[in-house]
């Protein structure tokens, strides 16, 4: 039981995530891929005449049950069987992020950004809203995300998914090393500054 309350190491979590691929196939011939759920939300919840969203989304309604399960599972993992909260990231990461003005390390996400208060700061808005937009736009343009391309696609020996995964990492490295230092610092000055707004 104690195991349920602790963070899990990669060698337990990774293989279990890999098993979702055969599980969904055996349960109902469903391909594992989450970003398509965003498309189904557009098709089912937003009244529109865009051809891309005019299809029989009800055939893919199993996706909504799967999402519901993800939300429930995360609730169980973090609230019912809650962790101690603090993520044991490496010393180097903490050091680098401190320099970028991230000071709160007591939950899974940095609360100065990923909170209602943080949302209304420049850096919070850019990371949450612009970042979220890019996730939705990019995964659909690229026809998949980490689950559909990196895990399912590469497992299925698709070179196109390998290319997509390399591009995920290229984008992530560019954002982390070139964009985030600017966004986190500018945003911090605006949100804490008041008088000395310095771009």
């Amino acid at each position, binding site marked *: 039981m104690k195991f349920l309350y602790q963070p899990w190491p990669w060698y337990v979590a990774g293989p279990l995530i890999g098993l979702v691929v055969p599980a969904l196939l055996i349960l109902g011939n469903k391909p594992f891929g989450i970003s398509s759920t965003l498309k189904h939300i557009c098709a089912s919840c937003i009244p529109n005449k865009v051809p891309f969203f005019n299809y029989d989304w009800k055939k893919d309604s199993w996706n909504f049950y799967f999402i519901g399960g993800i939300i429930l599972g995360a609730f169980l993992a973090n609230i019912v069987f809650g962790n101690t909260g603090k993520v044991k990231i490496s010393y180097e990461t903490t050091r680098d992020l401190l320099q970028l003005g991230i000071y709160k390390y007591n939950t899974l996400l940095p609360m100065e950004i990923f909170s209602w208060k943080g949302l209304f700061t420049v850096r919070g808005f850019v990371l949450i809203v612009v970042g979220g937009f890019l996730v939705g736009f990019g995964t*659909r343009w690229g026809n998949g995300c980490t689950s559909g391309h990196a895990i399912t696609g590469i497992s299925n020996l698709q070179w196109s998914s390998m290319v997509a995964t390399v591009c995920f990492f290229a984008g992530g490295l560019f954002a982390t090393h070139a964009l985030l230092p600017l966004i986190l610092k500018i945003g911090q000055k605006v949100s804490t500054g008041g008088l000395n707004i310095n771009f």
Partner: protein
Amino acid sequence: MKENIKYIAAGTAFGFVLTKAEVISWFRIQEMFRFQSFHMYGIIGSAIAVGMVSLYIIRKYNIKTVEGETILLEGKKFNKGFVYGSFLFGIGWAFTGACPGPIYAQIGAGFLVSVVLLLAAVAGTFTYGYYRDKLPH
């Protein structure tokens, strides 16, 4: 509903593992993109290895679905969007610390501001659909 309970169960297991392994943590994604820990590489790498072996076994022994159907997993045909779109998604992944699965998991884990993240992602997908014909593929 009854027929979809199995997908709720699979989703629950997936969401539980994502959260317990801290895959939904912005800190873990930063650590990954800074090459400062093996954690995320271990998770993605071992998930791919298990997925690959599973698909091999399914094909070799012609394992059927619970309903007795032949299992089919189609590949995705490459186009230029795989490069441009995936690069933009990578930026979004580093910004938010979440790919689509973890967005839902963050909401379930109690980070309700991620509802805004989800709405932004839906807006992004909708914008793609709207301008699809004008984008290179």
